[in-house]
């Protein structure tokens, strides 16, 4: 890997952006609650703190429990390095849509079994919920990416997202609906409101938080970090979709592109914070109704992809 | 402009009277007298039309030719008869065990007058947009009439009527839009005026126009209860009070079919009548046979006549399909007179027996012979027994079809008519004969038979006097 300026930007954003996003979301939520809120980089400080802490392990858990966070962190890091979440060519080339989806699934699998391994009843049923939700949300997520792939005539994510902006041949509607579908399924995948309330303390309603309820110390730090990376990855993809659909209406200079993606990522963070401040967490039975919206958007996207493809 | 004032005057005056006059007896007498007076005014207004002039111009886009004038007169006769009978009907209703509220009766009069006005407007419309709006107005205004009894059943019927007809009329709007779009090929701005469309018929975009015709036909057919879009009709006719049912069957049905006729006018001018012809012919024939089959298994007396109305709507469609508007007019007039008589008599019987169920109505001939005889004669008149007018018009329609060489529809129609006749006769026999229930409450048997009797007489007169030369008056 050569240290070009593009790569430098990539690495810097990779290290700072995840914590910034989490910080911004928390800050804005605090704003809506008339609180000052934690410092923007509090999650980074937390990480440092957690790495310095001792780890407490249940006497029932095995190596699976320990390895889960490690696998999810390394998988997430791999994805972040190979998927163009800024529209710059990623350092590790050749990430296919399906590779991406499978690595995500692999990560999910390991986090699920590691939380079951902990033996706590909360983490077990949270794992079951996680499995159910991702089972429902994954089609939307995959279909949205596939629609992009159809329009781009390639399943290489670097090709889909990394195309030069002037002759990007994916139509606006596909970008837009895919972006919406990714955002809605991202809410599910990232365990955010209205599917899961990340700030709740209620054991029985949590999904992600309950899954990691047994993790502590460096183990928890890895979980938090990989969650931050996942947030970055998803927001990056979604932000690109919206930036590209915007670029169909307003001509964006190619150099501004990474900047505008970053801005849109932060805007998405604001949007998420607003949703979390004002929406109501859905009843468990209503979650499929919400996910149906994600599926619909991805259906619309693939419909548009097919229709436009037929036209051109 | 004066004509417009004349036409608006009586219904609006009657509406105002109904709003401000709390006395039902005064109200009902005044309104019925006013309506007959209205009829006289209209005859006076339209007299020159039949003598020489081509059309009566009312307002931008509103004018009436001979056939429209005839339909208007028919509508007013039917409404006047129904409203006259309504006086007796409500008098009884107010004395019954659970009397209707004074306010509801007044609301009935208000709505009925506005409804009448909207129906008259339909015939004046020389613009598809206006035509659509006035048909929609008839739906909105008459929904309240169905809800007169304030019962759960009437509410259900009203809701069905309201929602199904609204959707149907919305489709008709789509048709109107498509026709408008097609007219933009003929003139740059496009037009909805019917005379203009007729003039430009040759230049219309035909695929668009055909599509528009189909949608408009579907919409107006829903309103006229053509099979299979009829599901609201028996409910609404059955749940509305008898005078309202009479207006629905005798007048509103004609409105919707008149709109279809107007469409056919344009169709014919465009030289593509053949497509419309087969649509109308088959829709009509299937409606006739379907309604006849439904007639066999009916439990409610007014539902029986409702299905008979559907059957007649089918016949009228066929009449339109033959391309002879005067035939359509004749069939409409005959059906309206006889059917109104039937509905009004049934209203009497339902009030006397307190039930709409056929199985509970027995021995009408025994307990009130006048009603029984008139009911039998009206029913025969409706099913087309000579010497009543319906027979003549049905015969003319079938004759026309035979001349055209459409033998299969003729066979279907004949089968349908025969089946309908048998079904009605069987039900009629059960109504007329047998042992009546004890608690019949006959109410002014002579007075309440007056209007139906006169209508029946009208039907008889039509049966004897119609000649092709008379019909030729209406051929444009």
């Amino acid at each position, binding site marked *: 890997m050569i240290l070009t300026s593009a790569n430098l930007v990539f690495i810097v954003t990779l290290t700072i952006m995840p914590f910034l996003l989490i910080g911004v979301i928390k800050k804005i939520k605090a704003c809506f609650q008339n609180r000052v809120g934690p410092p923007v980089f509090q999650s980074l400080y937390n990480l440092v703190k957690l790495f310095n802490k001792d780890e407490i392990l249940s006497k029932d858990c095995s190596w699976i429990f320990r390895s889960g966070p490690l696998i999810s962190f390394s998988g997430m890091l791999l994805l972040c390095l190979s998927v163009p979440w800024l529209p710059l060519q990623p350092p590790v080339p050749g990430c296919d849509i399906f590779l991406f989806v499978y690595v995500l699934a692999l990560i999910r699998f390991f986090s699920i079994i590691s939380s079951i391994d902990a033996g706590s*009843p909360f983490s077990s049923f949270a794992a079951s919920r996680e499995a159910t939700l991702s089972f429902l949300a994954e089609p939307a997520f995959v279909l949205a990416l596939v629609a992009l792939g159809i329009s781009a005539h390639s399943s290489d994510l670097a090709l889909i997202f990394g195309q030069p902006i002037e002759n990007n041949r994916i139509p606006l509607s596909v970008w837009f609906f895919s972006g919406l579908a990714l955002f809605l399924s991202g809410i599910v995948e990232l365990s955010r409101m209205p599917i899961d309330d990340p700030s709740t303390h*209620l054991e029985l309603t949590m999904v992600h938080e309950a899954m990691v309820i047994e993790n502590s110390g460096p183990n928890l730090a890895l979980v938090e970090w990989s969650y931050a990376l996942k947030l970055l990855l998803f927001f990056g993809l979604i932000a690109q979709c919206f930036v590209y659909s915007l670029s169909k209406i307003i001509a964006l200079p190619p150099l501004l592109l990474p900047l505008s993606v970053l801005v849109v990522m932060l805007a998405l963070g604001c949007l998420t914070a607003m949703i979390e401040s004002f929406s*109501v967490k859905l009843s468990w039975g209503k979650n499929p109704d919400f996910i149906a919206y994600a599926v619909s958007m991805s259906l619309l996207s693939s419909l548009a992809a097919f229709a436009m493809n037929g036209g051109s | 402009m004066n004509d417009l004032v004349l036409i608006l005057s009586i219904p609006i005056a009657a509406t105002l009277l109904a709003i401000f006059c709390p006395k039902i007896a005064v109200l009902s007498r005044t309104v019925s007298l006013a309506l007959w007076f209205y009829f006289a005014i209209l005859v006076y207004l339209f007299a020159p039309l039949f003598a020489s002039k081509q059309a009566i111009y009312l307002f931008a886009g509103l004018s009436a030719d001979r056939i429209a004038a005839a339909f208007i007169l028919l509508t007013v006769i039917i409404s006047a008869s129904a409203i006259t009978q309504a006086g007796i009907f409500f008098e009884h209703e107010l004395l019954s065990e659970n009397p209707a509220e004074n306010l509801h009766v007044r609301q009935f009069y208000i709505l009925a007058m506005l409804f009448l006005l909207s129906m008259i407007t339909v015939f004046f419309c020389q613009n598809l947009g206006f035509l659509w709006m006035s048909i929609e107005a008839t739906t909105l205004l008459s929904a309240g009439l169905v809800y007169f009894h304030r019962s759960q059943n009437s509410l259900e019927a009203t809701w069905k009527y309201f929602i199904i007809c609204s959707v149907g009329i919305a489709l008709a709007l789509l048709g109107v839009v498509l026709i408008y779009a097609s007219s933009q090929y003929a003139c740059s701005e496009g037009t909805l005026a019917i005379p203009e469309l007729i003039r430009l018929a040759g230049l219309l975009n035909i695929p668009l126009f055909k599509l528009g015709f189909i949608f408009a036909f579907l919409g107006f057919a829903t309103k006229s209860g053509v099979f299979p879009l009829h599901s609201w009709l028996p409910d609404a006719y059955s749940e509305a009070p008898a005078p309202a049912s009479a207006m629905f069957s005798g007048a509103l049905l004609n409105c919707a079919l008149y709109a279809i006729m107007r469409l056919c006018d344009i169709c014919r001018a465009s030289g593509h009548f053949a497509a419309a012809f087969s649509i109308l012919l088959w829709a009509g024939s299937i409606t006739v046979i379907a309604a006849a089959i439904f007639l066999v298994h009916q439990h409610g007396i007014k539902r029986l006549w409702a299905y008979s109305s559907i059957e007649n709507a089918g016949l009228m469609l066929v009449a339109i399909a033959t391309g002879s508007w005067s035939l359509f007019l004749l069939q409409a007039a005959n059906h309206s007179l006889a059917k109104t008589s039937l509905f009004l008599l049934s209203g009497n019987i339902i009030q006397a027996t307190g039930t709409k169920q056929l199985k509970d109505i027995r021995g009408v001939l025994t307990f009130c012979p006048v009603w029984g005889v008139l009911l039998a004669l009206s029913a025969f008149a409706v099913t087309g027994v000579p010497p009543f007018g319906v027979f003549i018009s049905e015969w003319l329609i079938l004759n026309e079809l035979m001349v055209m060489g459409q033998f299969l529809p003729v066979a279907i129609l004949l089968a349908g008519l025969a089946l309908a006749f048998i079904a009605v006769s069987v039900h009629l026999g059960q109504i007329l004969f047998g042992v009546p229930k004890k608690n019949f409450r006959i109410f002014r048997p002579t007075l309440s038979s007056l209007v139906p009797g006169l209508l029946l007489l009208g039907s008889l007169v039509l049966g004897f006097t119609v000649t092709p030369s008379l019909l030729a008056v209406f051929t444009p």
Partner: protein
Amino acid sequence: MISIIEPKDEMELLPALKQWLQNDEHRLGLITSLDGKQLVTLLLDLASRQAKCWITEFAGDSYRSFTSSVPQAHWFERALFDMYGLLPKGHPRLKPALLNEAYSGIFAPLRSLAEHDEGKSYERDLSYMDVGGEGVYEVPVGPVHAGIIEPGHFRLSCMGERILNLEIRLGFLHRGVEKRLTEVPLTKTRFIAEAVASDTAAANAIASAQAIESLAGLVVPEKAVCLRALALEIERLSMHVCDLGGMAADLGCGAISAAFSRLRGSVFRLGELLSGSRFLRAYILPGGVARDADRYLAEFARTLKPLRKELNVVIDSFISDAMVLERLDGVGVLSPAFAKEFGLVGVAGRASAVSYDVRKVFQNKILPEPRIRFESAGDALSRTKIRVFEIGTSLDLIEQLLASLPSGPIAVAAPELLVPDSIAVGIVEAFRGELIHMISTDNKGRIKRYAVKDPSLNNWTGLAIAVRNNFLADFPVCNKSFGLSYSGHDL
């Protein structure tokens, strides 16, 4: 009020109780014992505004259980077993209610020491209900929860995401309050009494004061009665606002929850102006109230007006939110039949068509009558609606009380002697519902037995029934909608 004491034979107790409860105007107040040798059944007659005590002497350590015929007795019988070691024969599920695993089998707090020395032991069955069937699993929650809430253990038997059964085990906060109340001097009683449940401080203090005043024959000055009512309504207001905020937090509406928290601060301010304590502590004393608030009333009124306006805005945006309505609709349904059978009180009762409100029946006639509303859906939504309605009622009452505050002394001299050998009760509509303090005196006029019945005692069973067949994830919402007290229950 002093209650009428009637001896009742053990055999006729159950039929008499059943018959008593058949009348809609009759209620069962509480069942307890004085020293473990008798049953005291406190009955309330809402029509004649009287309290009646049936004293049933029996020999030995056991009596016939009522639970099977009078379901609302079951919690009392469990408490009796914990406190006195009295065994209800034929109780269907005799589990500890007030004590937990930490207490040994020979310990019965209200038994005299002499009896403990005899080495009697009371076997407590600590097992949980076993729900059979394939795929049924248990989720234990608590007693230590993830948030800062009181301890209570919930054993949820679930099938997938559905709750089949909930077993509630409380008693982790057992502090021996009732025992302590009989030991402290009369002047200190009020401090212990209001600490029974600190979020219900005013109500507990008023109930205690009422009971003591009845026993001392004191007539409280009118002004003190009004000031007490004011304190009670402020407490109700503050706790209802708090509960709504908690509900908003549980639903995930962070912004609304924060707004409620802020407004609760303003309500505390009202309390401070009135009593000098934001939590209304040490304000109410037997004979009257501790402080005259005349100086602060102008500011009180000034604070109240904007508070009402802001509350309306926040409540409106919460309760008219379609998602909130949808979220709460049909969650945790407690049918009116169950509510009646288990004698539910307060908000939860009124949400399930139990229209009983102590203020309508037992409060002093000079106080303004509250408007009462009840719903019959019995779900979390109706409980929230009732709570919202009661906030409005409390605000109205506060305004009315302020407008018509009588003048005069605020207290009479505190009592020194109580009437010997009688039983008096203080009944108050606390924000959770009917709160009863019952004091029985011995032949020298000392407090022999001090029994407290917190509204939560009636309602915990309601929660256990209401959550059945709901989603596991809906449990916190159900729980919050009932808003019950742990410490008030664990005496």
